[in-house]
């Protein structure tokens, strides 16, 4: 029993160390926002200040980059969600020799380094006369983000009871009715989650975007440029805001999910 106790405590100790490792960087980055020092640091502490938020708010290039990130994110949503859903529906319907091949091909963008997706997209579209920019960024990101959507849709479809469809048909429903009234409502949670993930993936993408962005700058690219040239705690202020937005969204999502769960439990 003692060895089990030892294991119990050592794994807890390890988890504490692990989460310190995970969160220390974020905490230090956040604290450094309030230090009145030109280079972001928490040591030595000069003066506590809010001025970096002001500098950030006055940074027009940042706002432009943020807008670009939103446009790209929405563009990717509009393309990757329909593609991913189609791919999921296709895989859950088609049975035959080629299925494994299709699945591997759909998975391949996730196993390809992001820089290569960016490079191949850049070269291919230049041959067609399209050069780098927001549009090409949407195309390049869609290439691999569709695969995430496909996986999430497929995971839900695998638990789908096809007798529901057959029941609808025997009650005289048309194909489009079955899709609209049975299949899509069933897929809705997966599609919503996939949409959120797709947007986040797009928003934070760097490696692929770097090659296809042309002269346009997304927020991630902007931050990276800032870190390497002209780093001030205004970057930390931006980081802190993103952390807060993330935490608020994560908690809100969790609360909503639980409420939904309770509602369902109550209905049963």
């Amino acid at each position: 029993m003692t060895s089990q106790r030892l294991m119990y405590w050592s794994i807890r100790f390890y988890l504490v160390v692990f989460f310190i490792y995970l969160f220390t960087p974020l905490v230090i980055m956040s604290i450094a926002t309030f230090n009145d020092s030109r280079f972001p640091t928490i040591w030595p502490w000069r003066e506590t200040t809010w001025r970096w938020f002001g500098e950030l708010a006055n940074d027009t290039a940042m706002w432009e980059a943020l807008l670009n990130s939103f446009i790209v994110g929405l563009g990717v949503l509009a393309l990757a969600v329909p593609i991913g859903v189609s791919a999921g529906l296709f895989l859950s319907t088609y049975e035959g020799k080629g299925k494994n091949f299709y699945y591997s091909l759909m998975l391949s963008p996730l196993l390809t380094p992001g820089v290569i997706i960016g490079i191949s997209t850049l070269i291919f579209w230049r041959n067609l006369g399209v050069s780098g920019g927001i549009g090409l960024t949407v195309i390049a990101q869609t290439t691999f983000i569709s695969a995430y959507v496909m996986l999430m849709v497929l995971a839900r479809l695998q638990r789908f009871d096809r007798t529901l469809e057959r029941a609808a048909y025997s009650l005289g429903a048309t194909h489009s009715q079955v899709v609209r009234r049975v299949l899509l409502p069933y897929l809705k949670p997966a599609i919503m989650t996939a949409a959120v993930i797709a947007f986040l993936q797009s928003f934070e993408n760097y490696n692929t975007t770097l090659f296809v962005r042309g002269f346009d700058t997304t927020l991630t690219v902007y931050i990276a440029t800032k870190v390497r040239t002209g780093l001030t705690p205004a970057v930390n202020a931006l980081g802190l805001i993103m952390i807060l937005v993330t935490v608020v969204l994560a908690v809100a999502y969790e609360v909503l999910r639980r409420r939904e769960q309770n509602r369902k439990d109550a209905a049963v």
Partner: protein
Amino acid sequence: MIKQLTARFGRPMTLVVLLLLWFWLIVLVLLPQLIMIDYSFKPNLIPSQLGGPEDVYTLGNYQTLIGNDIHRTIFFKTIWSSILVTVLTLLVSYPVAYFLAQLATAKQVMLIALLLVIPYWINEILRTFSWYLILSFQGPLNALLLGLGLIDRPVRFLTGDGGVLIGMVYAYILFMVFPLYNAIESLDNNQVRAARNLGAGLLRIHWRIVIPHAKPGIATGCIMVFMLAAGSYAVPALLGSPGSRWFTQIIYNWFFEGGDWNMGAAYAFVLLILCIGFIAAVMKVFRIGLGDIGK
């Protein structure tokens, strides 16, 4: 195929599904890769020379890579460091995944999963940037170590590969923890208990029962982390020094500083082959198929 689809969705919907699917797989996935490979076997020509006598297939771009000592060294260093990152990430993630999958209560799983995901919703650049702050010459880590009397003078963490390794392990933990968790979760806890009752020690239980069961998860995690590490641009660019360049940085320079896209395409293709080779090796070692990945 079309029959199965129309039987389920009707004709118009089938058409939409197939058009979207084929647009994705052909125009976005396959053709760009093929054109990139085609590009890599051609010399870098000005537009007026295209279609001329010099516009022929050649291995010249690849010979440059083989002939250039610096590029070759960086290529092998990238492989070695990415393997190191993969192994370190596996070691760091395994206990967490095991705890989540076998020991934690449902509430703990929820909480830990949330804690794990939060840092990953924040941009890779920002996460890497925070390590840059910690590891910088006058940063808090040096201040702490000096204060504790563990070192006499500040350490230059950001010279050499140390910073890059720390930053990468940090950046890719999640891609290891979740596949491991998925695989270990399906292990019947009675097996562990039976082994313990029969007198197996902790290491033996993991080596003989948990790890063999978790093989698909370990393989998926390793493939993802290796691919991300070898293909990373942000982490080495932010945490590396001129002495610790990454292969992706050379590729980037061919495109946007050297202006030689054909050379860049060749280097990119070599990187792609490296990743495919790694995937094939892992699948062979762990005896799993491509269908096990992504589950």
